[in-house]
């Protein structure tokens, strides 16, 4: 019963970690994950992906999901 949480770029640096595992609770949303690990509300400028697809912050998660938090992308 777990969620894999990943951080990238500035978020990764600020968190001081690139990945962690949090316990899964039924009904848990993306925002809940951030609140669990960071002890604050998810800032609106942070992008979210669930299982490697962009996602909204209210999405309900399933056991085993991978959630990623990152700033605006700057590739290309």
């Amino acid at each position, binding site marked *: 019963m777990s969620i894999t949480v*990943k951080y*990238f*770029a*500035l978020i*990764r640096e600020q968190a001081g970690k690139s990945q962690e595992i949090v316990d899964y609770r039924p009904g848990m949303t993306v925002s809940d994950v951030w609140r669990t690990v960071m002890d604050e509300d998810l800032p609106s400028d942070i992008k979210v*992906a669930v299982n*490697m*697809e*962009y996602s909204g912050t209210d999405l309900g998660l399933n056991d085993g999901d991978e959630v*990623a938090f*990152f*700033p*605006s*992308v*700057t*590739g*290309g």
Partner: protein
Amino acid sequence: MKVEITESIFKPYEKIEQYQKSLQIHGQYGAVATFVGSMRDFNDGQQVSGMMLEHYPGMTEKHIEKICQHASEKWSLLDVLVIHRVGEVTIGEPIVAIAVWAAHRGDAMDACRHILEDLKYQAPFWKKEHAGGGDRWVKNNTAGYLKD
């Protein structure tokens, strides 16, 4: 269709030529549009010496494949190649190469531009520049205006 993420310096035109040779579309393509993006020595008002390009292994490839798939549905294309660099990049080195093969020029050029804009604004890559005053994360890409 091919998407490649690489940590090594690459020669875009050799890669494009080589990929083209592997395709079975001789005589079918009238148009090939390419875009190659390289690292400049100056950005956002400051001299830079290099950068680190971070990505999200797995999602990045998946996302770019989806972009190319989407472009192939929107335009009439014969093939697409996207190569994107990650890791440490030095001034003048290629960062991204896009090549689109189509029967007609409108499709090739529209799709090439579309893929590039999506790479700039959607694909999970993050640039950290090495500038005079230390390292800095690039906040936003500059606009890819259409002036036509």
